[in-house]
């Protein structure tokens, strides 16, 4: 089952994202040990930035979900989609499906 790592500073939004991921039939990565197939992150927070650093350029596809528009240049190079909050869970689900399509699960 594909596994998605979530890096989001707001607890309520994180809960929403995890719910969306589970409803899609994916798994939510927990801790550093999990095998990660895609990352859903807020690039404008410390957790998001540390995930970007951890995977470097050859990590899993990244879907950005941010309070800042794409033009702010926060998206890491591995981003395959960039969504501005408050995009709907439907849009997030589509972006994640596309992410798996772009790069098959490792």
């Amino acid at each position, binding site marked *: 089952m594909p596994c998605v790592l979530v890096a989001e500073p707001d607890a309520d939004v994180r809960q929403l994202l995890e719910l969306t991921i589970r409803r899609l039939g994916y798994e939510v990565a927990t801790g550093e040990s999990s095998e990660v197939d895609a990352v859903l992150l807020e690039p404008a927070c410390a957790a998001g930035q540390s995930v970007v650093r951890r995977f470097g350029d050859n990590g899993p596809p990244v879907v950005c979900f941010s*309070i800042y*528009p794409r033009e702010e240049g926060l998206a890491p190079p591995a981003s395959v989609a960039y969504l501005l909050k*408050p995009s709907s869970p439907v849009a997030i689900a589509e972006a994640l499906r596309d992410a798996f399509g772009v790069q098959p699960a490792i």
Partner: protein
Amino acid sequence: MSLARRRFFLTSVALCGLAVLWGVMIAFQWAGKLGTITLAPWVALLGFDLGVVGGFVGAGSMVGLWLVTADLQGTALDNVQIAVRVGSMVALGVGAGFAGRLLRESERSQRSVAMLQTALIDSTLDGICLTDEHGEILISNRPLRRLSAELGMPQSGSVPERLLAIADRLAEPERYRSRMQELATTTGEATLDEFELVGSGRVFRGYTTPVRDPNGGLAGRVWTLREVTADRELDRMRDAFVATVSHELRTPLTSISGFLEMMHDEEEGLGESGRRYLDVIRRSTQRLHLLVEDLLLIAQIEAKRVELQLEPLDISELAERSVESIRPTADEKGVAISVVAEHAPAVRADRARISQVLDNLVSNAVKFTDGGGEVRVQIDAEDGELRIVVADTGIGIPEEEQGQVFSRFFRASTATQQAIPGTGLGLAISRALVEQHGGRIAVSSRVGEGTRVTVALPTTP
């Protein structure tokens, strides 16, 4: 000293001199005017024993002489001669005293006028100077001397030369140079744009206006220079605040709208009132979302970060779409809405952005028009431009507020009094988008009669 007073002063001196030779002069002051009386022994030549001659003073100068003569009995000629000599000395002294006093008074009043002028022009924070037609400084105030020293301007030369000398110390020196050259050749009104001193971040704004002679020719210029660093800093803080708010609102908005969407499947389990409450939450969330999007868009437009995707567009088709999307609301309110398009030429424009402008104008028109009213969208061509007129029969905008309707967050009093919801961003965004297309937007309105918004867009040549 005025010319009249100078003439009078010279006349007094001349009379004093005459008095030395001819008689006794008594200077007197009457009703604030200086006069002289001279005992004139030369009248003896005319056959009189004694004469008194005096000056008529009018409008501050000697306008005539008067002479009174008398015959005296038994006065020795020697005594008269002695009296004449003593009197001459006294008269000279008195005359000189008056002359000196006159001079001092005049100097004092001249000095106080000059002091008043200097105090006046020094009392402002703006640097001010007046130049002749060649740009040479005639008068300047202390703030100007301070500001030009801080800007590193040379202390000599004409003002355009001094201004040009600092071009390399400014951000965008080329634009500044061409502006200065433009200014050196023009005789019309001109504002200098703001310019920023590299390194310090200090921002200055210059303004210049011509001084005309009575025939309308250029007699010189008045220049003012003001530091606007603090104003710019306030603008920057306001923009940063608005941007922060619009970004930070996105986090709670994400969970509100996200969980509302999640609830969709569970709505069946709710009672009728529960579903109604949920609708209210949805509508309000949608409004909040639109507000956040508008705030972001206007920040991007002002930072010139919105790029237009230009393509040939049929504006009447876009107008039809905007009208159709608002029609359910209009029908519900009982507002008639129609589009009239005549020979609308094609324009090159950004579909999404122009649609946004049309949506804004049409929804405003419906929003501010009561049931039974009418909204008409008219599209035609005029003077090589495409013209879009959105006219309603709504509540209108007071005349004194019409100049502000395109400002961010401005809301007409007619709208706020009736608690008609809105953010005051729609027209600000519309204007910015229209202007980015090289077009213009204007509003005319009468309270209680309606509002007309006119958009002009350049047509494809």
